[in-house]
């Protein structure tokens, strides 16, 4: 398979992941503002997590931050060239780092796990991997390397 086709596949995977993440974050943002109890399976305690002091960053709900993050990642996947690749990787890796911190807080400070939040953390992790591989491997657009395309 050519590197171009591999990259197209990775990009598609990233788009799908970002869309799923977007859905999860949208749901968490919605219940945060509505103050309703999330559907919380697997013996988790979403309400405890969602109302904890770590549910907001400087007054902004982390669910909303996640939502904006996924939107930005999705947008970066439609930006051509290395700028888009870098933006996607930066957002995903930063998102991964913050998700890891929040999961740590869930486990050790809040003593409750919210499956939706964990789902988002897993999606962020996968996005960080995919966008990093793309940043390293994606073929450059012709103009970026000054080498004529040889068929």
């Amino acid at each position, binding site marked *: 398979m050519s590197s171009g086709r591999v990259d197209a596949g990775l990009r598609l995977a990233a788009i799908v992941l970002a869309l799923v993440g977007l859905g999860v974050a949208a749901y968490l943002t919605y219940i945060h503002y509505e*103050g309703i*109890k999330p559907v919380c399976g697997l013996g988790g*305690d979403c*309400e*405890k997590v969602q*109302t*904890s*002091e*770590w*549910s*907001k*960053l*400087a007054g902004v709900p982390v669910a909303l931050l996640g939502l904006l993050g996924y939107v930005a990642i999705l947008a970066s996947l439609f930006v051509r060239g*290395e700028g888009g*690749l*870098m933006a996607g*990787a*930066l957002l995903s*890796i*930063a998102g991964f*780092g*913050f998700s890891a*911190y929040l999961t740590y807080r869930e486990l050790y*400070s*809040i*003593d409750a796990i919210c499956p939706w939040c964990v789902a988002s953390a897993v999606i962020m992790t996968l996005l960080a991997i995919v966008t*990093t591989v793309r*940043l*390293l*491997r994606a073929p*450059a657009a012709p103009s970026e*390397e*000054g*080498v004529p395309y*040889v068929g």
Partner: protein
Amino acid sequence: MRHHCGVSTSQKQTKQQRREAARQARLEAERAAALSARRKRRLSMLGAVLGLAAVLVVVAIVVSSGNKNDSSSRAGKVEKATGAIPGQTESREMLTGIPQQGMYLGNPKAPVRFVEFADLQCPFCREYALNTMPVLVQDYVRTGKMRMEFRDLAFIGKDSEKAGRWAAAAGQQGKLWNFSDIFYFNQGQENTGYVTDKFLAKIAKAAGVDPVKAKAYADTPAADQPRQVATALAQRYDVTSTPTFMVGRRGGGLAKVPAAPTDTNTLKAAIDGQLKGT
């Protein structure tokens, strides 16, 4: 002639082939060089991305935990809390002069009631009690506008139940709030069996509660009454976690306040909303 001509043609072909091969090699080399240059450039890009991401995450974490445990908060003082037992002086400062009656704190005629569903072992109830509650007591309870209710669900485990019984006993002596506040200051790891009679007697003494009488009362069925009432109330309002805060008018129904334990502003806004209905 013919022969010569033939040789000439074949020589031409090889020349052409050689030129073609050289061109291919050159292109190949250029491509390889471009590829390795790209790889280098992308790696340095990844380095920049990782560095920037690390900065972003560190800033987020610092912001996220910045407002907690600073030395100005009551919780921050816990290590250097004064009095014979951590929290003794602090809880006295917060509560002196405010009427207490069982699980109630404040003026019985106050127009607004404020209910906290709690568990003495719950770490977020501690966060609330040490950081947020003093502000609410100062602004609303001391001024006679609001009466607080301590609804102890005691559902985390055996240690919670035992602590709850002693809290009820402290309430019987009109000191529940001193007891619970000092308990929170000295809260240990959940369900490790740290809530012994000795531990409770120490808290009770610091709260101004007679420990011998308290122990005797804690062993009676009456000491479990508040937990049962609180549990029934929680079921009625669909309360599933602690701390849960509810506000309402005196003698009226209650509404949940969706506030985090240290979200003083949201709690104050909800209380102000109830007061406006006066």
